[in-house]
């Protein structure tokens, strides 16, 4: 049974320095309040895996010096432009980058979910994405027996088993079940990870698993280690069906984060100010 933590910081205790931390894509509920709390705590040397892409979250963590290695398929602020701290870190070589492609990350998490050491994936042959991933491998498809002189190469991806999955969702119930709706990759992320930490907008009275309609979109508490309430916890990113982007804020971020000084100002204004509060 997961505990409903007294504070966000308590819930984040599971995320140690040096750990492999999995986080979701923008449109699936990004735990931004938790991200700010990790930066305030001074998290260090994270191996951050964004399934399968990231935006503000990775950019903030990189800019704040929390990330040693980043594994994802893209980091961008979307219509607000390139992710400035990510770009700067790559150009200066201050983080190690493991470039992937979206379905490869989905498949590698599903491998871990299924307890298999690898998953196959089509595509990728001839890309520099593959060429630069010595941890991926290519075999000849053993089921292609028709043309022995023309082997059918296929990529195998090793399972990704993060230490902790960190995600934000609309609500949890008092049994620790988390309602994630149609964002099924959050379920896979939790299944694939050793531990799962969740922030939610609110606690729901009752048990989602007893209600067939809600059960269909539930991550069972069995897979969850700790939960903290963080209202508007995805802000300034959207929470599907609940709130949209804060476009003004993201414009402000994009402008400030263009320089080291501006980024420091952003942290002071929107991350560390909470320390005093």
């Amino acid at each position, binding site marked *: 049974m997961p505990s409903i933590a007294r504070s966000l910081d308590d819930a984040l205790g599971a995320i140690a320095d040096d750990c492999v931390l999995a986080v979701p894509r923008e449109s699936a509920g990004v735990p931004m309040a938790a991200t700010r709390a990790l930066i305030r705590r001074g998290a260090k040397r994270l191996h951050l895996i964004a*399934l399968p*892409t990231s935006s503000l979250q990775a950019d903030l963590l990189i800019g704040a010096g929390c990330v040693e290695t980043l594994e994802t398929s893209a980091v961008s602020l979307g219509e607000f432009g390139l992710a400035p701290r*990510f770009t700067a870190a790559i150009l200066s070589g201050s983080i190690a980058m493991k470039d*992937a492609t979206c379905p490869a990350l989905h498949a590698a998490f599903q491998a871990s979910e299924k307890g298999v050491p690898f998953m196959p994936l*089509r595509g*990728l042959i001839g890309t520099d994405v593959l060429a630069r991933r010595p941890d991926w491998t290519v075999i000849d498809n053993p089921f292609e027996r028709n043309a022995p002189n023309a082997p059918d190469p296929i990529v195998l991806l090793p399972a990704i088993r993060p230490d902790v999955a960190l995600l934000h969702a609309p609500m949890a119930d008092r049994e620790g079940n988390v309602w994630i709706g*149609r964002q099924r*990759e959050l379920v896979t992320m939790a299944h694939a990870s050793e531990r799962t930490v969740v922030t939610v907008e609110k606690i729901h009275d009752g048990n989602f698993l007893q209600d067939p309609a809600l059960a269909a979109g539930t991550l069972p508490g069995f897979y969850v280690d700790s939960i903290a309430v963080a209202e508007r916890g995805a802000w300034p990113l959207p929470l599907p069906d609940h709130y949209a982007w804060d476009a003004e804020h993201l414009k402000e971020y994009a402008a400030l984060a263009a320089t080291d000084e501006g980024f420091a100002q952003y942290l002071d204004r929107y991350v560390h100010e909470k320390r005093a509060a």
Partner: protein
Amino acid sequence: MAPDRQANFEFRDEELLASVVADLIGDVRHVAVGNASPIPAAAALLARARGNGRPYVSLLGSQRHTFWTDGGRELFDCAGQGRIDVFFLSGGEIDGEGNVNLVSVGDPDRPAMRFPGSFGSSYLYFVVPKVILFRTEHSKRTLVPKVAFISAPGGSDDNVHRTGGPIALITNRCLFSFDPERRRFQLESVHPGHTLAEVIVNTGFEFERPPDVPETPAPSAETLRLLREVVAPELAEVYPQFAARVFGAGKSA
């Protein structure tokens, strides 16, 4: 608000591009459009308006215009099942063999420039039968002799499983088709107001061209009507600013 019907014989660049892309889509079952792609989205909705509801159009990034209920992997699984017929890709760099670079320029270990990343391109380029390359900025910076990093290759050896790939490249200046056998682009038409000389001087790669290069046909009155009356209000739900700027379709549409 409805656009001025008297303006029907005039059209905007975006309307031309949407019309050309809708022709490229052809008669298919399912077109998926990535995030932040208003012109391909308009083209897909135009194809649907012409086809009386066919193709099925999925606009990623819109919960309303997609049916996904299996999480972020469903798009890729759907493509792997052969259930996505048309997709759009752009690239920081695109070269004459149809290779796409979404990662970096210069030595990848010490890049001079970094783009966001490959997204799903390294997979989707292999399994979506018609991939339409879309890059409005037509310059020697974007259309290069050889990409610095291959996010997705234009072609593959015969024994590599591949059911998809590029069919065309559309820019603000012209339309190229792609010949998968020769792995080369062929100039199909130059957009009204642009010239062959301009295309040549701004393209970093070699390409085929017919002796006489036609002008890209202007959208028909019926196409403009569909774009302005049917597509624009649908598009406004996902791309309100674009719809307002191009079609005058406001949030009230």
